[in-house]
């Protein structure tokens, strides 16, 4: 059964004097209106969030209506949104839900993301620090390819330039390579402007079967062609593992991307644009090769070619990415889906990717969770 996205909504990402439920309400109201359905039509609600406590999904969805239908909570760190998409997609595909709603919402504290699945000894002894992982990954990229720290800065410049064009982004100021390289060192070689900042925001997505969309007269549904979620294989290394195997190297993003291309019957050459997990600028470069946009070793070459800029052959993070939007953990992936739908409908205004028909979204979170979503216009 073909599953479509019939509606999307977003609360801008940033810092707000609002509760988690208030942030979510804005996004959900917009998504339901966009799809032309009410909360009473929703058979399953899936809430993606990291930081809230017990019964959070019911608290967040509770202000939308008391329908008696299932409301469930999923958490997979920065990939929480993808877990929600997977659950909702499967419910619609199997016929258990005619209409499913995904809500991603977060009010993340400032600073390093703490408690990312580490054991207490890792945190106490000073090795349970998330930027260490991104910094070591960046060091290995710099040592094993021709990528330079200037390339790491250029990714930030590109995404911040896109963020200027996105009213939902937190940081809407352009920056220069010099400014990035003069920003505060966090974990060498990564500086403050090469890392995304955890923040607040919400996004919501309404899904249904293609038949249901036709029945409801929805004019421009976007087809969900693949949703895949991968976790650790022996050659992977990510937060929060203290150790890794030294003789084999793989990546959960490669696993998720390969499965997604299979599921969609499409390949990297079919993509018109990509939204990827730019937790830090080296992570974006590594996503280029892991998603198959180039061979490993050619990441900096692809960046320097201008192909991944807005207006280039395969724009990456036309929304500004997490570097410009900030990262509300539970909401970031659905924020990407919001961007995919907006672009695929041709409604992205000044940041529109011309002729966008196929888009890919990628998130990566603690616990070696990587997820890929592929969507197609029509």
């Amino acid at each position, binding site marked *: 059964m073909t599953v479509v996205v019939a509606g999307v909504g977003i609360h801008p990402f940033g810092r707000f004097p609002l509760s988690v439920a208030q942030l979510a309400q804005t996004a959900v109201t917009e998504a339901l209106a966009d799809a032309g359905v009410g909360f009473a039509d929703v058979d399953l609600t899936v809430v993606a969030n990291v930081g809230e406590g017990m019964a959070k999904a019911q608290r967040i969805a509770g202000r939308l209506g008391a329908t008696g239908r299932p409301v469930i909570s999923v958490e997979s760190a920065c990939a929480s949104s993808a877990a929600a998409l997977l659950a909702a997609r499967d419910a619609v595909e199997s016929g258990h839900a005619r209409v499913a709603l995904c809500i991603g919402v977060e009010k993340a504290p400032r600073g390093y993301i703490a408690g990312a699945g580490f*054991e207490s*000894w890792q945190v106490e002894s*000073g090795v349970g*620090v998330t930027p260490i992982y991104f*910094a070591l990954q960046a060091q290995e990229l710099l040592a094993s390819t021709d990528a330079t720290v200037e390339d790491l800065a250029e990714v930030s410049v590109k995404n911040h330039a896109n963020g200027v064009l996105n009213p939902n982004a937190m940081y809407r100021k352009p920056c220069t390579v010099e400014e990035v390289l003069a920003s505060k060192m966090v*974990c060498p070689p990564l500086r403050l402007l090469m890392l995304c900042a955890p923040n607040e925001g919400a996004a919501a997505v309404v899904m249904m079967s293609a038949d249901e969309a036709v029945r409801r007269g929805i004019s421009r549904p976007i087809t969900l062609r693949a949703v895949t979620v991968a976790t650790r294989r022996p050659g992977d290394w990510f937060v929060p593992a*203290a150790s890794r195997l*030294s003789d084999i190297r793989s990546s959960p993003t490669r696993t998720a991307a390969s499965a997604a291309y299979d599921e969609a019957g499409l390949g990297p050459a079919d993509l018109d644009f990509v939204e990827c997990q730019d937790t830090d600028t080296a992570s974006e470069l590594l996503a280029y090769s892991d998603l198959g946009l180039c061979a490993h070793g050619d990441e900096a070459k692809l960046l320097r070619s201008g192909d991944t800029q807005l207006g280039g052959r395969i724009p990456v993070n036309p929304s500004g990415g997490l570097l410009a939007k900030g990262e509300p953990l539970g909401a970031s992936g659905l924020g990407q889906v919001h961007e995919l739908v907006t672009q695929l409908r041709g409604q992205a205004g000044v940041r529109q990717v011309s002729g966008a028909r196929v888009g890919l979204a990628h998130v990566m979170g603690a616990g070696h969770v990587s997820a890929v979503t592929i969507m197609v216009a029509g």
Partner: protein
Amino acid sequence: MTNVWLADELVWIDDRGTSAGAEVRLNATHCPECGRFSIPATGTCEWCGAAGSDVAIAAEGEVVASTAVLHATPGAIVEVPYVVALLRFEDAKLDLLGRVLGTDDPDAIPPGTRLRVVADTLPDGRLHYAFVQ
């Protein structure tokens, strides 16, 4: 030299006759099925799930990559700044993350530098592992 365990849920080294500064050998679980090592040692192979037995790995390794932590992290009891390295234990085919003593400059221990594993006293008195040149 003393063999020590990483207890995977409690902060660490049980002090089986060792003290700060002493060289130690870390215990890993060796898998009879796939032949791989896992660290911390838990008795179960992290890669294939088979039951394994604890064996000590080499007391020194080679730096694969390094960085530094310059700003305090919530929950950490060690003082910033400090250097962190991914150390390669060739025989066990494992890379392990650890704090490096004696320098606050990651460039002072470039890839290929050999570091030893030692017992180190955390600010609260508990023993932990660290790397030193």
